């Protein structure tokens, strides 16, 4: 990276011959875009979201020989493929929203043999589901499993892609949220599913009050906002002095920090965009109630154009969350390892109910022209591997919720035995109008999409 950082304000000030220019766009202009995928000519812009739940699905025969020997039924995969499939027990909570899904997928990425452990289901599965790439090898030589991504997760790839936002970048490129605070390691990488790149993670906002402040607490004093914007120019000058003295790795870290400052500066300029205040949220330790609290705020923010990309982590990878509300005495990770199938089934059903609540709220949130957020939305619902008992990689769950402005066919089940997870990513990117000849890395590359699901 040899980019010299100039803030947008600095550049435009230069362009305007030194005169101060105000860049804040009027709210209406900021919201109206030029995209448009609906056949009827309305020009709504698509929204992309990730919904993540921990520990995959209850195991069944298709997960492998050992799992088959355990003799439990498949409660996930619909019997029929194509449109109009009959929802299974675990898909039933999502049935009202006619989600599409693909079954049979698994990671196709390489597994370097040194250091050992890189095939571990939790780490490989969730990295591939989120980044289309294997996890970084660094860190596997240590018990802390200092797990890091090699590249951005799909939400960040989209949020920073020119073909997604173009020139209409909203106040937040993306919003990153989480619900359960239980963590497998007390270490951020295990408690975040949104990455910008190696060792650069977006830790989720997990407190509804914090999310509320982030989205809706906008200062009334716009003159002071302008001074804050100017001040950032000077902070960046300081930083530019420093960057020349740093080694390569730290220069990259500082450059990212600088790019964020640029983004914050732009955000301050857009802070005049006021949304209706939905009121301060309550709080709850119940995962479904907390999902509702956060999804309500998210929906209100999305409706008034604060962002079009989000990541929503219900539970973190390998979660130790104790679902005592379901009568489960141990953390979920241990419950999976102990092979307590019925409890894993109950927890998974509960996680699907939480997913459904998020989708309900997106469906109920409708703009003045009658288009719901869910109509505009594509939510990738996924987990970290096929199942958690033996960390089986086969049958990785992958749900497509929402219509993406008509780009996703509803209620379709596609099945590809042993198929590549990246085909789901290619499908999503193409549905969002991002030109994607192929996607996937280190063995995961593919140019294929899911032809039954992509409209």
């Amino acid at each position: 990276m040899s980019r010299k950082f100039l803030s947008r304000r600095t550049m435009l000030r230069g362009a305007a011959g030194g005169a101060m220019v105000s860049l804040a766009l009027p709210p209406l202009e900021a919201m109206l875009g030029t995209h448009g995928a609906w056949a009827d000519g309305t020009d709504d812009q698509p929204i992309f979201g990730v919904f993540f739940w921990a520990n995959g699905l209850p195991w069944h025969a298709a997960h492998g020989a050992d799992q088959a020997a355990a003799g439990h039924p498949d409660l996930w995969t619909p019997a029929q493929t194509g449109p109009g499939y009959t929802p299974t027990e675990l898909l039933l909570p999502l049935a009202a929203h006619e989600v599409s899904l693909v079954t049979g997928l698994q990671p196709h990425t390489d597994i370097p043999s040194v250091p050992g452990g890189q095939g571990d289901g939790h780490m490989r599965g969730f990295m591939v589901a989120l980044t289309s790439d294997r996890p970084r090898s660094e860190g596997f030589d240590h018990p802390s499993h200092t797990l890091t991504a090699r590249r951005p997760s799909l939400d960040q790839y989209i949020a920073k892609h020119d073909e997604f936002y173009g020139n209409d970048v909203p106040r937040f490129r993306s919003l990153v949220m989480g619900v359960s605070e239980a963590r497998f390691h007390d270490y951020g990488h295990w408690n975040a599913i949104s990455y910008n790149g190696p060792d650069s993670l977006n830790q989720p906002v997990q407190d509804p009050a914090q999310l509320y402040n982030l989205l809706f607490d906008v200062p009334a004093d716009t003159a002071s906002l302008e001074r804050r914007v100017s001040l950032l120019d000077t902070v960046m000058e300081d930083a530019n002095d420093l960057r020349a003295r740093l080694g390569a790795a730290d220069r990259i870290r500082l450059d990212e920090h600088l790019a964020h400052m640029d983004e914050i500066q732009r955000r301050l300029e857009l802070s005049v965009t006021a949304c209706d205040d939905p009121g301060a949220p309550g709080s709850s330790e119940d995962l479904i109630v907390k999902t509702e609290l956060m999804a309500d705020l998210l929906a209100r923010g999305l409706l008034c154009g604060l962002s079009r990309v989000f990541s929503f982590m219900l539970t973190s990878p390998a979660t130790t969350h104790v679902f005592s509300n379901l009568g489960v005495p141990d953390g979920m990770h241990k419950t999976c390892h102990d092979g307590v199938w019925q409890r894993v089934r109950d927890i998974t059903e509960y996680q699907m109910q939480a997913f459904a609540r998020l989708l309900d709220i997106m469906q109920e949130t409708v703009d003045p022209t009658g288009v719901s957020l869910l109509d505009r939305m594509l939510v990738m619902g996924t987990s970290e591997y096929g199942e958690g008992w033996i960390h089986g990689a086969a049958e990785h769950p992958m749900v497509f919720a929402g219509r993406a402005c008509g780009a996703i066919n509803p209620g379709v089940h596609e099945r590809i035995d042993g198929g590549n997870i990246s085909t789901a990513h290619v499908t999503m990117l193409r549905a969002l109008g991002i030109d994607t000849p192929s996607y996937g890395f280190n063995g995961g590359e593919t140019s294929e999409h899911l032809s039954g699901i992509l409209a």
Partner: protein
Amino acid sequence: MNEQARRPRWSPKWALIALMGATVGCYGGHSERGDGNGGGEESGDGASTGDTGETDGDPLVFDPAAAVLPRLTSTQYRNSVTQLLGPGLPAVMLEPDTNPYLFFNVGASTTTLSELGTQQYEEAADALSHLVFDDAERRLALVGCEPSAPGDQCVQGFLADFGRQAYRRPLTADEMARWQAITVELADPDAWEGVRLAVAGMLQSPYFIYRVELGEPDPDDPELLRYTAFEMASRLSFLMWNTSPDDMLLDAAADGVLDTADGLREHAERMLADPRASVAIQEFFAQYFDLSRLDGVTRDVDAYPMFAPSLPQSMRNEVKLLVDDFVFRRDADIRGIYGTHSTFVNEELAMLYGVDAPGASPIAFVPVELPEDGPRNGLLTLGAFLTMNAHETETSPTLRGKYVRERVLCQEVQPPPDDADTELDTDASEAVTLRERLEQHRDDPACSGCHGFIDPPGFLFENFDSLGSHRTEYPGGHDIDASGSLDGVALANATELGPLLADDARVGKCVVTQLYRHAQGRLETEDEADILTDLDDRFESEGYRFKSLLMQLVTHEGFRTLARPQEGA
């Protein structure tokens, strides 16, 4: 560098231990050499593998590593801001710290700040500066004079003082001019607003947010780099007090006092006597012992009637008091913490341990001597270790043994193989106890290497349940066998392990390694092996007293010098 100039030190002791070093079933050495770690249970041929023993007969060479750029941890940010703006500031939201390799300081030097974290710095700087400058008395107390015009002498004097504290060194002329310009250009509606914004700006500057310690050519040998005196002030201060240097340290840096080991020692001693040192050292031990894992602990009170939501915090406090006893009150061999009958209990811990503790209450801890012939002896037989290394409904000899290997002895346990079948046959009719179930690992060659390394010390704690209560039988009524072993030495139970660890050279070496990682904010490099060997040597010769190790570290060449940055990424 003058008085401690790269003198070679001979260390035949390490060569001996290296010869005792091990074959490896599971243990994977990280980046050290001359390493005396024991190997798997199966070993015993004493064969040395790898590149151990290189220090045999060779002088030690202190090769430093390149600088890192740690971002302030959230505690360091809060402490530093309090130092700059005064006490009584409101809490601000900041990016959560991460602790790869156990330490926040390591996370601080490896992770990249997120966009939300950047926004939080901006908002915190704005909010905190408003809080001070919206209060006429408070701003006057901070600035020390009333500006009569934007950017006047009063303002300039303040900028120089405040800037030196915020940047932990004097501002350059360019920086002075930069902030001076802010105080003039943004003085709307008055001069105070310009000063406020300069303060808010400096609090967002990378020179405040990061610890910029890039070194200068060493006057004794310009090919080499040493930390500047101001950088040494920072390094000392963040290690000893977990905050930015105070005026005395910055003055000492300006006067050249911190260019010498004597000067560093003098200030380190001053700082160690301050209560802030105790807080900072407790923070180190809390991270080293991984005590934050107690935070989310819950137990079903039907199965564990002793459990109360306050209990995990009481367990943390007990460890804190023990650390304080060993480090500050008695200044004793720190390894002794693993083999002692002394501890500190409040009411609920006294009940958990079944001891009389006159004077103990829910909040008052009192020192107690646990019975010599009782089941407890040392830190690993107390609530914190036993609870955080157990599951909700049953113990985990594997987690407990892993902690002994990784945390106490600094050995590394390899992750399970990718194709490991982690399922233990819960239905096997003969396997009625957890021990019998785990012993199935022994029969599977894919598992036996690691589990033979981890489980034998882990079994020693089986007579403590998931909450650390003593027990003699499993819930189903089967007798507990708490025998096990450590590196081939058979032990009846955990009371026999404590005294062994309290006298084990590996435990001391582990403390050195962990402190070094915490202090440097990174893993040690292979080239630094001799620095660690030397520190351990000194630690041992001074009776493994932790404060003496700190003094050795801050005056050590390995802490005062650095290598040139790596180019190309």
